[in-house]
């Protein structure tokens, strides 16, 4: 977000009284801008993107002055008529179709003021103008221009003028190719057959928006007394607000605003219009949202302090406010005027049933069992590198890839958890063994049946690392899970490129494959630089949760004893057991099949 620098002296002058730095800091942050600090005479303020009207020193001082009660109420700006006309040619349609223009006279410019004007222009370009794409601003010395002014599009080769800071005629294309500003913003005109230009009645090029002004007639100096201002872009109302922000700032600097007649092929507009627009607002709505009981007169004075006029449930919104889309935006300004610090905060404890996600409860239980086995929990990032997920593991599966990660080490989402644990073991090689670790977290698999094209699942992975880490040890631990979770499982022979053949199996519960268990292949360990045997269990908790059929995953449950239901009924109903399985049974006595399989929630 943009930061502006203000002169403390100027701000205090404007406020008209002595204000301590602390009060200044407090008022600035309570106005709805970010106070960044005071250094000497400089005040640094962060402006939120909804308030481009605060990007100038005069605009900011205007708001602060109202807010602190020094100069309140709706600011009236007189707009006199100038005889300047701008004729908009239909050729700009499809290129940069709109412009909103004004004239400001009686400017007594100094180098400082010119700097301030350039700052306003630049800050608006970056933020409100979205780097000149949505709005670009040009300011010209009116003395050098002979109206009427034409806004039209010409072929790049037809355009010839001396761009700012260059005393040499260039064509449109040359400007984009050679001039620094042309090179920076040239992409905004890319692919256009014609480029937009402002010309005066002598057909002198004033500028080529949104790129650059003419060095001859498009450059203001301290000698300039009258300026012509144009904003160009794609949405007339949007540009009009931009124009209003600039002309009101210049008026606050002492200038007089004059209107310009815009002749579009189909319609005429005379801008700027600063009489404000009316919005209806019911005080009941304000009070309901804020939790306050403001009277009509309190409301009026609050609006006064935010620069509005309020009368008979109607609010007059200044023409420079870009952020008032809906009455709710007025409500926020009332809250600011009332003072955020004055909200006491009401908390009424309501008897309500809280509910936790069943899978989260399930994960907590799993975590307890793992810790009970003396295993330490680690936590890796979801992001990792493709090599770690595939090459290091001797596998080639597709992973979810990021488009624009700034770090190469983190350019995919993890497909499985085991590599994360190996990474942890790799970074702990200097500590004593055994190192037994586990992680519970999310894995990501490309899967087009999901709206996001990605299936996200919760998994548990355990790695035992040490001289005596082996299949028996890891299976012993899995048995504690099977026992505690009341699982009937088999381990099916399988081949897996990361494990030692004959020492890896897939854990099958209720005919669903829910995980891998085995000893990692020494080549994999070498790939990671780990010189100790590693036995691994990776269990897909989402799948396990589903096959055990406890509760629908998306239904939050109220806290209480976890609903119990044995999976044995499911296993019994699917008798087709593969031949080659080593059947294992946890030592725990199995509970009888639960009858209440349809019971979904338990309430306390």
């Amino acid at each position, binding site marked *: 977000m943009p930061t502006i620098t203000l002169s403390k002296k100027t701000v205090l002058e404007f406020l008209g009284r002595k204000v301590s730095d602390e009060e200044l800091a407090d008022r600035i942050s309570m106005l709805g801008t970010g106070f960044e600090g005071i250094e000497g005479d400089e005040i640094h303020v962060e402006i939120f993107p909804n308030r481009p009207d605060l990007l100038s020193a005069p605009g900011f001082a205007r708001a602060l002055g109202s807010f602190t009660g020094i100069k309140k109420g709706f600011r009236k700006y007189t707009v006199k008529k100038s005889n300047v006309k701008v004729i908009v040619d239909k050729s700009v349609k499809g290129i940069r179709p709109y412009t909103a223009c004004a004239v400001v006279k009686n400017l007594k410019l100094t180098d400082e003021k010119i700097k301030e004007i350039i700052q306003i222009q630049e800050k608006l370009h970056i933020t409100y103008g979205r780097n000149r794409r949505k709005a670009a601003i040009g300011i010209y010395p009116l003395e050098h221009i002979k109206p009427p002014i034409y806004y039209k599009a010409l072929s790049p080769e037809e355009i010839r003028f001396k761009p700012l800071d260059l005393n040499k005629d260039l064509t449109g294309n040359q400007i984009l190719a050679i001039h620094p500003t042309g090179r920076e913003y040239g992409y905004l005109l890319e692919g256009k057959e014609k480029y937009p230009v402002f010309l005066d009645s002598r057909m002198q090029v004033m500028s080529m928006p949104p790129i650059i002004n003419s060095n001859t007639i498009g450059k203001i100096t301290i000698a300039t007394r009258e300026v012509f201002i144009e904003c160009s872009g794609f949405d007339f109302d949007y540009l009009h607000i931009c124009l209003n922000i600039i002309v009101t700032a210049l008026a606050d600097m002492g200038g007089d605003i004059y209107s310009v007649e815009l002749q579009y092929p189909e319609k005429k507009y005379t801008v700027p219009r600063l009489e404000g627009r009316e919005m209806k607002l019911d005080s009941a709505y304000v009070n309901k949202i804020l939790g306050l009981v403001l009277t009509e007169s309190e409301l009026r004075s609050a609006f006064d302090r935010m620069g509005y006029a309020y009368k008979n449930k109607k609010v007059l919104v200044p023409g420079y406010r870009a952020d008032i889309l809906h009455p709710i935006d007025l409500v926020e300004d009332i809250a600011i005027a009332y003072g955020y610090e004055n909200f006491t905060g009401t908390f009424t404890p309501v008897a309500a049933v809280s509910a936790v996600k069943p899978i989260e409860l399930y994960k907590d239980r799993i975590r307890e069992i793992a810790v009970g086995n003396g295993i330490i929990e*680690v936590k890796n990032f979801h992001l990792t590198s493709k090599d770690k997920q595939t090459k290091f593991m001797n596998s080639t599966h597709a992973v979810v890839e990021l488009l624009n990660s700034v770090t190469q080490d983190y350019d995919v989402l993890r497909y499985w958890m085991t590599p994360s644990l190996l990474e942890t073991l790799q970074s702990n090689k200097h500590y004593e063994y055994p190192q037994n670790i586990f992680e519970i977290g999310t894995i990501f698999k490309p899967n087009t049946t999901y709206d996001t094209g990605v299936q996200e699942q919760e998994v548990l992975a355990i790695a035992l690392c040490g001289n005596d880490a082996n299949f028996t040890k890891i299976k012993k631990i899995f048995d504690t899970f099977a026992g505690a979770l009341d699982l009937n499982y088999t381990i099916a022979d399988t081949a897996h490129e990361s494990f030692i053949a004959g020492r890896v199996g897939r854990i099958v519960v209720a005919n669903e494959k829910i995980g891998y268990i085995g000893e990692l292949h020494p080549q994999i360990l070498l790939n990671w630089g780990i010189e100790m045997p590693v036995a691994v269990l990776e269990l897909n908790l989402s799948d396990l949760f589903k096959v055990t059929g406890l509760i629908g995953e998306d239904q939050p449950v109220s806290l209480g004893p976890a609903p119990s239901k044995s999976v044995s009924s499911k296993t019994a109903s699917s008798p087709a057991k593969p031949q080659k399985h080593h059947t294992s049974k946890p030592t725990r006595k199995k509970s009888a099949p639960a009858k209440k399989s349809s019971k979904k929630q338990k309430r306390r």
Partner: protein
Amino acid sequence: MELQKLAESLHPLERKILPLLETTPDTGMLIEKSRLKEVEVTRALQWLSNKKLIEIKEEVRELVFLDKNGQLYLKTGLPERIFLTALNREMSLKDVEKASRLSKEELSICMGLLKKKGAINISKKGNDVFVSLTDNGRSILKKEMLEEQLLKHTFPLERKSLNPQELFAFNELIRRRNIIRTEIKKQRAATLTDLGRQVLESVGASDGKDVIDSLTADMIRSKSWMGKTFRNYDLNAPVPRSNYGKIHFENESVSYAKSIWLEMGFTEMSGSMVQTAFWDLDSLFVPQDHPAREMQDTFYLKNPSQGKIPDDLKKKIKAVHENGGDTGSKGWGGVWDEEKAKQLMLRTHTTVLSAQTISRLKREHLPAKFFTVGKVFRNETPDWKHLFEFYQVEGIVVDPNATLNDLKGYLKEFFKKMGYDKIKIRPGHFPYTEPSLEVEVFDKNKNQWIELGGAGIFRPEVTKTLMGFECPVLAWGLGLGRVTVPYYAITDLRDLNRNDLKQLRSMKKWMLRPQ
């Protein structure tokens, strides 16, 4: 009495070591004499030292050892003696070689060495080198050289204890290959203190036979413990470290934050981390040209790159962006681009889950309260104060009667339970909330305000579009890291996921009211 107690508290290892210390201060010798393992001796010494029965001094010593050539020469004699012995007349070097059976290398060393000592004359005749004994050489032959004397010592020798002659021989030999070598040894010497001597006496008196060290099942069954005393333990003696299982400290803070919302009657939300821009941004009325959508802040996906968006909601979102739809808003203007909304990304805030939750909510469900504590992502290079994934504490209250004042109430209550008694709010800006606010809490330890996140009331453009009716939705998205990091005294954010086993084991538990 005290002495007696001390004596009884001695561990068998200590009992074994203590008497030996009268004569043997050196730990290496102690191992030999006690026939205990090194670790046992070390432990016994440590315990005795804790009880102030002995004093341990660490000494750094340079020891001289006989190396493999040295051992050989001890048997065969030094090459230079062999050389001199073989040289019974003026001989060509070749003849010396034959007579002495020394290697070429040894020969050349001998030549240099003996020339230096003035024991031989070297002359050249034609192409051959001739050597003959000098008088000096003859006298050397008759007596023992200093080097030979040194080799006959019992090794290791302490370098410090060498006399000038021995030191000369040492300096000569150390330069030569593998005759002797030195080693720096840290040696610990233990000496009895006065107290130690007294305890030793009373131990001697009791001889330890009637003191039980470890109670065993056999003793209980056979009642052999009767009439005996149990050795007193040194209760403050350090014990080996236990490798216990442990929950990751960050998860402890996460579950604590969750428990607060559960206590307050909130329901947990969950949802995917990969999201379409549609849900993460468009549904929350973030304009399509908002700077936050730009590449540098957000992780977009390459493969897959586009997701599906719901048809019914798509039309409403398009309308609200372009002209405010039926919400009474002006909208952002311009044209809303469906393709941009289909882009897949890692969620930038958990507010996306709030949006999805209220889009499923029916009027009859109100009032309703939801929360989640989940990871969000920002495309940044990790350094000490930035991570690309971190936790956000998200909550919404959907209640026709909810107000901004209630919002502050919820935040106050949450932070009170997190240990922060003072909070303040100030105006903020988010495209999807109005009014918007920033939350700060007062950190008593640091004596300063810290920013903890944003909150506000969802804009009608969000609520009316997603729910189909207007209702205030209080919402917040708070950073958890700012609270957990000072608690765990972490100064580098990367330490949250460093997974250093030592750090994980030593990390303190999350307490009930942390601050």
